[in-house]
């Protein structure tokens, strides 16, 4: 098994991605094969028609969290691309709620990793679930 990356490196990896920074997606913590990010409520992420966080933003949170989980599950990678992403919006996020996303790699083989995500608000109510497949190239 390759050495696990340091949490500080993972945090930098998540927080430094420009689009993550633009939306306010931040690293929280990680462990073997899993990772958590958070997204604070911001008025400009709300789609006015529904008065809730836009589904596109939820999708970004799923992608960013699942993508970073690859590093926790597969060790050092030379590259990793999202092949597909499925998101179910179970319940619209309540106004003002900070969202927490936890993703876990459920299985992987030499090049493909399957990652599942769950998004909750601060009270533990489920907001969305996600499933993503990644193609990765092991590094080092």
């Amino acid at each position, binding site marked *: 098994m390759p050495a696990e990356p340091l949490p500080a490196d993972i945090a930098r990896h998540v927080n430094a991605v420009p689009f993550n920074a633009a939306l306010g997606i931040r690293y929280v913590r990680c462990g073997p094969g899993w990772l958590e990010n958070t997204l604070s409520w911001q008025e400009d992420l709300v789609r006015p028609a529904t008065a809730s966080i836009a589904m596109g*933003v939820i999708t970004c949170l799923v992608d960013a969290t699942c993508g970073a989980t690859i590093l926790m599950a597969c060790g050092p990678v030379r590259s990793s691309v999202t092949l597909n992403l499925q*998101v179910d919006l179970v319940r619209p996020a309540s106004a003002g709620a900070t969202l927490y996303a936890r993703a876990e790699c459920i299985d992987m083989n030499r090049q493909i990793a399957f990652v599942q995500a769950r998004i909750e608000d601060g009270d533990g109510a489920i907001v969305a679930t996600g499933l993503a497949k990644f193609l990765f190239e092991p590094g080092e």
Partner: protein
Amino acid sequence: MARTPVLQCLEPKLIERSGSRSVYTMVVDDRLIGRPGFLHGGAIGAMFEAAISLTLSEVLSGQDAQARALDMSIEYLRGGALAETWVEVSVVRAGFRIVNMGATAWQEDPGRPIARCRMMFKLERPTPA
């Protein structure tokens, strides 16, 4: 320099609408970067959602119905460059309770899509059917 909020910068511009098909262009800026030099997969997802939502509001105009997104599924086909991106949206089925939408995104060449997407919406109407 003041910048527009990130979701507003995705605001799609309608280029063409014919029947159940609509084509939009999206302005891309450096906030949408994921891995160096490429669009973030989530940014592509947000573009799809913005274009699909706009088309849906056209479809529902004049109806007393509120759409709630139920799900979204995206297939990433090619890396998206930091370039103008086109999104074609189609209404797959507009039912009384459920609407299914599809979309494809490309840059430069419509024959080389960078991603495709489908979304499902539940329509909330004031009186039950």
